[in-house]
């Protein structure tokens, strides 16, 4: 199991080599190096999994301590890895999906002249940070991974830093996430004051030794971090903007791994959350709200990556909803399948964008089905999976969540209905994008503005950039996973996933998390309704965007107000801008030009007073000798007078 450190070491070495000596390597070598650095980690992850499964069912947890990281009086944080089924699952996802996306990126970034080395170095660094996040055995180290992925995200969003919107998006992402970090830090402080430790083992074992109010405070503060990282309302505004980064980054960081860190945190800290029902209710409602909020905005977006970004937000909402109703394993299950199908959707979108020379606006696509067939198939599979059509993976994971929302003791009908409706909306907007991109009349201009990708390879006779093998393999792998990934948990048939995760929710406390055994008539009824809603959503999209394309435009015109509100994402960005950003700027400027001047004036004023006083006083110094002599005389007379008359 100690091999797990190799998972960190190889990408770290890849980062270091690219960063320090990359200038001497040929251009193609950067991507190759970074991708190869991912492979050992993935292999080791399976070995670690095998080791873990060889342990008895109830003892599948290990705390591997590398060294004592912050040892101070009364506080201690190790650099240690907490290995249990949950962290190993995440380890597999990060290294596995990470590897295929690295591979894809080789092709996607191939023609980029300057930024490849930086891109792949940061991509490797991201993996290191993400692994620190999922492996950490205490909250302070988790925060290192947490901040590290935030930094990598900043660096990769700003890959095209010369574009103003990319630079702004990167800063926004980092600042919003820092707000989350602030919440988490406070939560960790309160945790330390309450439990005297910040490592998982001690905190969770003693979770019950504190008042509910304190636990609620801790969990809510941690939640702030989770909301920011996972793009949940009200800290979601950075996620859509983050699409300014290259598409592989969007796939890896802003879909498959980093943004799910919030869900991981909730599942990891379940012993605390179970003791704070108020927090759980909050999470459930935030999740449900974000799910439908993101889905409605996704309905009208025109940028292919933004649609997927809002979809990510919405799907993460599902996971939060699941965690909020206590169905942690359902949340993790959806995290797993989502990593497959959302990465697939992004990569397919990446192939399309790459094919037509960097265009991301779906209004300028269309009719691409026969031009990039592999993207069409991949997008279709990803779309069916996210729409929850059986037997694709999304069907099983999403229905698990909808079922829990209805039936869990913490859930209720409203939450369940929101989850159901969102499912239908999801099917609609994903296939809206699908049809706009691949069907209808071609609206793209080949060879127009080459933005983030360059050209010069695999051109067919039509000027379309065909993806190379390194881009096809990831699509195929992820397509297969998006289909079969859900088969690890089929209610009433396969319970592999639940059994696998069960030890996580039994240790390290004495009480167990409620692990739902879904199944039975209720489950299947809900599942069929959800699948039918999915089909209906797809059908509606087909009708509106393939059969009657004019109708969609008419609808948008007739409900222009709603359309504009949705298109502008409910004006939340503008609201925050005028509520927080501008006042802060104005305050800063006011302090700088106002109060700072006052302070400075007070100090300088004091100096001025002294100087004025001395200007007055110096008149005494006339420079005439006899004036001085007279003063001396006067002094002498006074002295003598004092001696004479002082009564001595």
């Amino acid at each position, binding site marked *: 199991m100690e091999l797990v450190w190799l998972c960190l070491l190889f990408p770290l070495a890849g980062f270091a080599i690219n960063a320090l000596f990359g200038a001497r390597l040929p251009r193609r070598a950067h991507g190759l190096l970074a991708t190869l650095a991912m492979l050992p980690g993935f292999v080791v992850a399976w070995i670690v999994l095998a080791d873990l499964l060889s342990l008895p069912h109830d003892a599948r947890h290990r705390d591997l301590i590398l060294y004592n990281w912050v040892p101070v009086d009364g506080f201690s944080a190790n650099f240690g890895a907490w290995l249990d089924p949950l962290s190993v699952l995440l380890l597999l996802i990060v290294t596995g999906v990470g590897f295929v996306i690295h591979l894809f990126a080789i092709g996607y970034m191939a023609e980029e002249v300057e930024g490849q080395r930086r891109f792949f170095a940061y991509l490797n660094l991201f993996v290191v940070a993400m692994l620190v996040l999922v492996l950490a055995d205490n909250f302070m180290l988790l925060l290192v991974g947490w901040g590290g992925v935030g930094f990598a995200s900043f660096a990769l969003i700003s890959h095209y830093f010369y574009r103003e919107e990319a630079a702004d998006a990167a800063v926004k992402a980092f600042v919003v996430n820092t707000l989350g970090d602030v919440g988490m830090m406070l939560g960790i402080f309160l945790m330390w004051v309450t439990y005297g430790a910040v490592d998982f083992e001690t905190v969770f074992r003693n979770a019950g030794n504190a008042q509910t109010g304190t636990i609620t405070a801790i969990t809510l503060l941690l939640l702030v971090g989770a909301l920011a990282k996972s793009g949940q309302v009200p800290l979601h505004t950075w996620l859509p903007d983050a699409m300014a980064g290259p598409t592989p980054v969007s796939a890896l960081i802003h879909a498959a791994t980093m943004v799910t860190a919030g869900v991981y945190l909730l599942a990891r800290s379940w012993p605390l959350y179970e003791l704070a029902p108020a927090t759980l209710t909050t999470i459930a409602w935030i999740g449900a709200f974000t799910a439908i909020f993101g889905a409605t905005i996704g309905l009208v977006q025109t940028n292919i990556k933004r649609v997927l970004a809002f979809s990510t937000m919405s799907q993460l909402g599902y996971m939060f909803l699941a965690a909020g109703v206590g169905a942690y394993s359902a949340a993790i299950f959806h995290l797993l399948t989502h990593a497959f199908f959302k990465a697939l959707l992004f990569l397919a979108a990446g192939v399309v964008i790459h094919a037509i020379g960097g265009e991301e606006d779906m209004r300028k696509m269309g009719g691409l089905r026969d031009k990039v067939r592999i993207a069409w198939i991949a997008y279709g599979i990803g779309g069916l999976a996210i729409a929850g059509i059986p037997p694709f993976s999304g069907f099983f994971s999403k229905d698990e969540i909808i079922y829990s929302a209805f039936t869990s003791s913490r859930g209720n009908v409203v939450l369940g209905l929101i989850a159901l409706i969102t499912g239908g909306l999801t099917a609609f907007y994903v296939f809206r994008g699908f049809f706009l991109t691949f069907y209808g009349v071609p609206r793209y201009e080949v060879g127009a503005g080459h933005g983030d990708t360059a050209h010069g390879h695999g051109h067919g006779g039509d000027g379309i950039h065909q993806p190379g093998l390194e881009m096809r393999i990831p699509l195929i792998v992820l397509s297969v996973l998006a289909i079969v990934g859900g088969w690890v948990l089929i209610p009433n048939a396969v319970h592999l996933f639940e059994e696998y995760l069960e030890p996580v929710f039994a240790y390290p406390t004495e009480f167990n998390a409620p692990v739902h055994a879904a199944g039975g008539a209720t489950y299947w009824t809900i599942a069929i309704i959800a699948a039918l809603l999915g089909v209906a959503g797809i059908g509606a999209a087909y009708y509106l965007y393939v059969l009657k394309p004019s109708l969609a435009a008419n609808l948008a015109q007739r409900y222009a107000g709603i359309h504009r509100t949705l298109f502008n994402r409910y004006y939340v960005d503008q609201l925050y801008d005028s509520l927080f950003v501008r006042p802060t700027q104005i305050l800063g400027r006011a302090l700088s030009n106002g109060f700072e001047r006052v302070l400075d004036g007070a100090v300088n004023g004091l100096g001025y007073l002294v100087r004025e006083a001395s200007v007055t006083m*110096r*008149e*005494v*110094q*006339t*420079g*005439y*000798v*006899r004036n001085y*002599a*007279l003063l001396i*005389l006067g002094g002498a007379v006074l002295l003598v007078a004092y001696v004479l008359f002082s009564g001595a």
Partner: protein
Amino acid sequence: MAPLSYYFVLSAVLFTIGTIGVLIRKNPLIMFMSIELMLNSANLSFASFARAKNLLSGQVIAFFVIAVAAAEVVVGLAIIVSIFRSRQSVDVDDVSMLKG
């Protein structure tokens, strides 16, 4: 021998003349002479006390004063000469560069 008070009166008169001289004259040489007058009035007091009390210390101090006065005149005249060289004048009112 005349009473001691005579000497004192003479000493006081000399001192006053010296003081007034320093204050009202503009020529530094005259001012120096006035200062000498003041010093010597003090010497006179010292000497008379020494004589009256039969103590040597007063006379010794008078010698000190004479020595100090000589040194002072040397330095002072040197300053006056150098001022005269640079300004072609020795009027003390012209030398007021230390005005604040």
